[in-house]
């Protein structure tokens, strides 16, 4: 009988919640773009989850910078902007590991939400040197300086790098 009551209570709660439950997409969006943790893959190492966490955290925070730049680049679209743009975005997704695109940054799954985010953060302008993003804005070109690869996106220069095994892009001053 105790059990029956519990079940009834749970059913009650469920029916109450159904009305107010946000959609999956909303939940994801509210939850931020990157996982909070990842399973450790070895038993003889220190807590490698810490590395992952730091990386994710930073990327997440700086994602806005990226979006701002996106807006600027959109203006450039007139300039012949290649289909390559998309490749870059996907590059971030595949290469970036937890790339903003996968969980909620939205390159692939929530294009509408992404557009909204871009609009909302269009106020600021330049990307901060030293900030790290998972994906490049559109309209970038590859420039090699002293054998090292850079991505020039408008007036902003990004240096691709491995953060752990993920590819990320750090905003740098224009190389000489």
């Amino acid at each position, binding site marked *: 009988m*105790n059990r029956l009551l519990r079940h009834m209570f749970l059913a*009650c709660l469920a029916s109450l919640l159904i009305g107010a439950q946000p959609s999956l997409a909303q939940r994801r969006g509210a*939850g931020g773009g990157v996982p909070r943790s990842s*399973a450790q*893959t070895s038993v003889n190492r220190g807590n490698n989850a810490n590395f992952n966490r730091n990386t994710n955290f930073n990327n997440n925070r700086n994602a806005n910078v990226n979006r701002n730049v996106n807006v600027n680049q959109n203006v450039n679209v007139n300039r012949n902007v290649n289909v390559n743009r998309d490749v870059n975005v996907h590059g971030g997704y595949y290469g970036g590991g937890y790339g903003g695109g996968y969980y909620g940054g939205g390159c692939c799954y929530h294009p509408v939400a992404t557009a909204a985010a871009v609009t909302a953060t269009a106020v600021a302008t330049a990307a901060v040197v030293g900030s*790290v993003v998972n994906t490049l804005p559109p309209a970038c070109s590859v420039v090699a300086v002293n054998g090292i690869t850079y991505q020039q996106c408008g007036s902003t220069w990004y240096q*691709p*790098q491995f953060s752990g095994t993920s590819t990320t892009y*750090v905003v740098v001053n224009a190389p000489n």
Partner: protein
Amino acid sequence: MAQPSKPTKPKILTICLALALTIVGIASFPILGKTPSPKSGTAGNRAGPAADQRIDPDAIAILNKMGGYLRSLKAFQIHSVTRREDVLDDGEKIEYDGVVDLLARQPDRLRIEVDNDRQHRLYLYDGKTFTLWAERVNYYATVAAPPTIGQLSDELYSKFGIDVPLGDLFLWGTPRSKVDEITAATDIGPSPVEETTCEQYAFRQAGLDWQIWIQQGDFPLPRKFVITTLTDDARPQYSAVLTWSLAPSFDEAAFTFDPPKGAQKIVFAGVRSSPSNER
């Protein structure tokens, strides 16, 4: 047009509250309410004199035997099927699957190819340099490397936050393994992996519960392991099933990087002790 038969929310709420009160009432009578009694020796009881009693010395011994055997192998090749879980901010877990193909010639040649839902990576070590190549974006980075796989694995981890896939295979049987930090060790019993008879063991250490399936007989190889991370309430898991070849054929070119067409050289970001770009 209204639906009079459908209970309104306030009504449901009232019913719920009544039920909740009833349950609380019943639960407060220990005879009627089946409140779980605390079991002795469950999780959390790590420290103290009881800890040693939870370590089966035979399980530790087989782990060390496996480590010694791994260190004795001249060369080996592994195909591994992996599953790893991420935890989203709201606690939802997402699994992603992949494969790891590893070729090692001890002590100083290593080739690992990782292909999962997120990444395709090639790790190459020829005793002098280490290269990581990201196939899909065609980026690679190269650094000078120390003279052994074990040292390489340490350095990649401490300098760049890179945990070499299946890196435990190069740490067991060395002073750098964490066998001495195990707080519980249990022999679960025989369990086949890919139709090979193995013995399954379960271990606990700070922040981790893990299980390993070690091949029975003269070749004590790890054939499967499952690692559960305890530092997140959602307890994400990683698992790997390993298929071994102890007589691989390869040549030196397997360990050297020949940049494919269009490959772009990038850099490794150093591990920061504290986030430096909080702005």
